[in-house]
């Protein structure tokens, strides 16, 4: 076995190795040392090589392929690297699909490698054959089927380049079993460009001037930033721009943590369950500066009434997002790290104190009507909000919060304090229940020195609960908090509000979660009373091991504020 150092010296050429071994060398040359996956017939040659290279590449065996792909996503989102998931053909490959779709809509760079039946069997309905290329086309940024070992280096190099460049996304590489067995002369060249693909659009300086003209003359400007800031590593540029201009800034759910929660100009979150002021004032601002976000319907509500009074400036790297949902008065196509820097150089500070006071006043209203009772309740039942507040207290806002999908997700994103970037991992666009537990495993491995707390509902927890096995086996120190209301809470809330309280199939009869955690040898506590909460959270945060905390919260609490589906952002309800 030749070392990677050796092949680097030899211009990455190795004589006569198998396709399967070539896959490993490609991963090593792309700097990958940690992958997630699940073996099976059609990918066994690759696993055989993983066995030989186990000192160089660490493979995490998840308990389901969906767990592998979500873990790869979590890893990518805290490490900033490309996540890798491996699965076999047929059901192994189809089990990846939900995670791939999630990664596409949330722009997460991952490379999925699937085994495939031998090329002479393609199209014969062979055992565990499925057309995974066909199935994955609508949910991948790019996909490629390899039927000859000689195609492996170039396809793998392209896969990593495409996954991480421009607007990142998932790539799927399907490798037939005969290509894995075939011997060939391996030669690797990193991909530096593809002629049909331009991930780095050049910034048009005239557009910068046009935007600056709007911004410098604005009386009520508003910045709405999204995940593009994190993906483009533009946190510092955003902060400088915000501070120099003095413009209030709000974010989408995936933009959270790019600017610290405590920053005086961070006015909170927009969206269906976002903050009161950001949503209401979207329809009052005179210039809306959208940075690395895509005007999702959960952000805009009814488009016909969304920010119609404002000049819209859209900073975006993906040309297909421009004018897709909201027509921009001017747009700056390109990397927001560069465009924010260019704006920062030319922006002028205006006196916006009256405008900023509007945010403060509305925030007070939201505090009085919603936040106070969420965080410091006087009623008997525990609220989800006070659990998050307790986590804030003991993690001091330094934890990575991984949330699943539903009420607890909205509460976690509303109340979690973030001091550092890349601290909010959640399934935003696809809303994948079952995301958080495996994603937290990946998130912790992507940032091992940081505290990772997964906040999960009792519904979503049971969708990927098998990944407790992965935690047990790897001893990865994730902290799991299940907020148990014995309901599919968000659906129940909608049934209460819009379906006359007909709670169809939302009541859950749950197992004893603490006993289950004990079965996996994970330290666990159940909290039913308020006076037990703080000490339990403290014990969890102080623990150096995996930890499970179940909090039995009020069963029929609702999440507010809320913009009813299809309504205008101005119609945000506080109760």
């Amino acid at each position: 076995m030749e070392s990677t150092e050796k092949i680097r010296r030899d211009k990455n050429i190795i004589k006569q190795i198998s396709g399967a071994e070539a896959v490993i060398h490609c991963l090593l040359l792309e700097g990958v040392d940690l992958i997630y996956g699940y073996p099976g017939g059609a990918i066994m040659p690759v696993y055989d090589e993983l066995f030989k290279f186990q000192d160089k590449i660490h493979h995490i065996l998840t308990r389901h392929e969906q767990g592998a792909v979500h873990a790869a996503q979590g890893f990518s989102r805290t490490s900033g690297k490309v996540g890798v998931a491996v699965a076999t053909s047929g059901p192994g490959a189809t089990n990846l699909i939900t995670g791939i779709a999630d990664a596409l809509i949330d722009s997460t760079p991952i490379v999925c490698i699937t085994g495939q039946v031998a090329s002479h069997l393609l199209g014969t309905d062979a055992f565990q054959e499925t057309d995974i290329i066909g199935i994955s086309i609508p949910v991948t940024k790019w996909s490629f089927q390899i039927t000859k070992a000689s195609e492996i280096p170039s396809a793998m190099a392209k896969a990593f380049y495409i996954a991480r460049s421009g607007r990142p996304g998932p790539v799927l590489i399907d490798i037939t079993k005969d290509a894995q067995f075939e011997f060939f002369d391996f030669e690797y060249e990193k991909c530096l460009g593809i002629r049909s693909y331009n991930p780095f659009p050049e910034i048009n300086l005239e557009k910068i001037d046009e935007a600056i003209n709007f911004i410098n003359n604005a009386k009520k400007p508003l910045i709405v930033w999204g995940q593009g800031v994190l993906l483009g590593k533009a946190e510092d540029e955003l902060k400088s721009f915000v501070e120099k201009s003095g413009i209030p800034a709000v974010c989408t759910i995936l933009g959270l943590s790019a600017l610290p929660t405590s920053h005086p100009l961070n006015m909170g979150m927009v969206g269906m369950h976002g903050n009161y002021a950001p949503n209401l004032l979207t329809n009052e601002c005179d210039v809306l500066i959208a940075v690395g976000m895509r005007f999702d319907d959960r952000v805009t509500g009814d488009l016909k009434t969304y920010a119609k009074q404002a000049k819209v400036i859209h900073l975006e790297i993906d040309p297909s997002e421009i004018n897709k949902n909201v027509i921009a008065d001017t747009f700056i196509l390109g990397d927001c790290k560069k465009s924010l820097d260019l704006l920062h150089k030319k922006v002028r500070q205006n006196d916006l104190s009256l405008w900023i006071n509007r945010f403060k006043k509305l925030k007070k209203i939201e505090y009085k009507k919603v936040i106070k009772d969420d965080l410091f309740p006087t009623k008997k039942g525990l609220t989800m909000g006070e659990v998050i507040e307790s986590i804030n207290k003991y993690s001091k806002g330094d934890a990575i919060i991984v949330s699943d999908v539903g009420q607890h997700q909205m509460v976690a994103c509303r109340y979690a304090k973030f001091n550092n970037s890349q601290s909010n991992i959640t399934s935003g666009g696809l809303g994948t229940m079952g995301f958080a537990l495996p994603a937290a495993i990946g998130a912790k491995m992507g940032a091992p020195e940081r505290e990772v707390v997964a906040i999960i509902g009792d519904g979503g927890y049971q969708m990927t609960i098998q990944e407790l096995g992965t935690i047990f086996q790897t001893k990865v120190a994730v902290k799991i908090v299940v907020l148990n209301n014995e309901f599919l809470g968000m659906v129940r809330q909608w049934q209460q509000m819009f379906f006359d309280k007909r709670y169809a199939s939302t009541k859950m009869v749950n197992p004893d979660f603490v006993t289950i955690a004990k079965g996996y040898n994970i330290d666990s506590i159940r909290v039913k009373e308020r006076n037990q909460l703080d000490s339990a959270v403290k014990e969890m945060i102080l623990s150096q091991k995996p930890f499970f905390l179940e909090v039995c919260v009020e069963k029929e609490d609702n999440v507010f504020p809320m913009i009813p589906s299809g309504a205008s952002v101005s119609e945000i309800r506080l109760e």
Partner: protein
Amino acid sequence: MKLKTYTISVYSENNVGLLNRVSAIFLKRHINLDSFSSSESEIKDVFRFVIVVKVSFDKIDNLVKQIEKQVDVIKAFYHTDEETIFQESALYKVKSNSLFEERQIQNIIKQSHANIVTVSPEFFVIEKTGFRDETEKLYNDLKPLGLLQFVRSGRISVTKSKMGISEILNTFKENNKKN
């Protein structure tokens, strides 16, 4: 909004699966294709799809951007009928004896400027290239006289304006040299 006919031209790599990628974009938006054809283009190793759709003006731009977003697509354009030169071909298979029994067939062929491609004792095949209404008129004229088979190609079209694909590919080469 009012629907309008657009011709979408897609220049791309000839990769397996790209056809599915492009058609998936229409499927996802529930848009029917009026016609679809693909062939080599004027540039070596570059393929060209010509797709005809009826969509509203506010949709077409987004649709074409989604196509262009595909990694293997070099460039995609859309044009109105006025901006393109386009043609379709149709083949009509007719029983040979009707050529003698139905005298007006000869006149129809002459008037429509159609060609006879092949003649056999059982049938003969007429070919007509032109606009949709021309091939349709011939279809309507021949139908009562007994059509054995009819087939029409997708639209092929070239634009009045320049496409500049070679320039795009050259810029890529230059940029790559710089890197």
